[in-house]
């Protein structure tokens, strides 16, 4: 596809070419972590590592792990670990290159945070570089959200919480319905929410329904 569509997509979020720079959605996820994050926290798809670094300052968070599939993102996040003001003090902060939650052990995280790539994109406009992967949620906008919601329960402690950023562009109701189908309590889940001209961004807290009946 032409460079035009690539630039359009990047321009929509004002991003650099390889690693997603912190934007409104990042700030919202960091706010939600400050409010609800606790214990050992994993940020999936950390990008520049900005949200993960902010998470190390959250009162109830004791350990932060940041993961990303992109080598560029991992290096950017690792730079924050080694040069960050809190290096040596505060919660431990580590970076792991990973595909979603695949290399993490069962039930080890109290909090899992994710700002997924969610922009719905035309399948014919695929250019397959790191920035596209940081932004595109496929045709529905939910191509990464759904496998995440399906697999995250395994690594979550029984009383753990998932903090998921959901854009109206990816379909808020469709995401919440999917999460409910994967065994999460989705009653009154909104932690923080902001409306913008073209989308509403919400961070929802999803908790496992284990032990409760479906109704």
């Amino acid at each position, binding site marked *: 596809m032409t460079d035009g569509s690539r630039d359009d997509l990047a321009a929509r979020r004002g991003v650099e070419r390889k690693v997603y720079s912190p934007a409104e959605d990042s700030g919202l996820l960091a706010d939600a972590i400050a409010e609800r994050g606790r214990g050992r926290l994993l940020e999936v798809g950390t990008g520049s590592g900005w949200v993960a670094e902010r998470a190390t300052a959250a009162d109830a968070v004791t350990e932060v792990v940041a993961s990303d599939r992109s080598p560029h993102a991992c*290096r950017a996040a690792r730079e924050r670990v080694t040069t960050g003001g809190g290096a040596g003090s505060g919660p431990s902060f580590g970076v*792991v*290159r990973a*595909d979603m939650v*695949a*290399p993490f052990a069962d039930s*080890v995280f109290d909090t899992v945070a994710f700002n997924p790539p969610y922009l719905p994109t035309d399948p014919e406009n695929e250019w397959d570089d790191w920035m596209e992967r940081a932004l595109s949620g496929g045709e529905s906008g939910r191509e990464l959200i759904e496998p995440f919601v399906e697999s995250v329960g395994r690594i979550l402690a029984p009383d753990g919480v998932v903090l998921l950023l959901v854009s109206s562009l990816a379909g808020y109701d469709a995401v919440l319905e999917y999460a409910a189908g994967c065994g999460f309590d989705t009653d009154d889940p909104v932690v923080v929410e902001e409306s913008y001209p073209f989308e509403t961004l919400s961070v929802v807290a999803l908790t496992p329904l284990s032990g409760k009946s479906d109704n």
Partner: protein
Amino acid sequence: MKESLMDILCDPLDKSDLDLEVDERDGDEIIEGRLIGSVTGEVYPIEDGIPNLLPPDMRDDE
């Protein structure tokens, strides 16, 4: 990566334990080395303090 991370990592292929081999250390940080699947034998490199735990078929992406 800190050695304590071993408690929460597993082989992405089958969720079995990983063994750690260290080439270079800086205090409690492991800078260079590898993680090895205790069942699969798959080798996952640790470079510049970052363990690469992508499954082998995704690992060559740069």
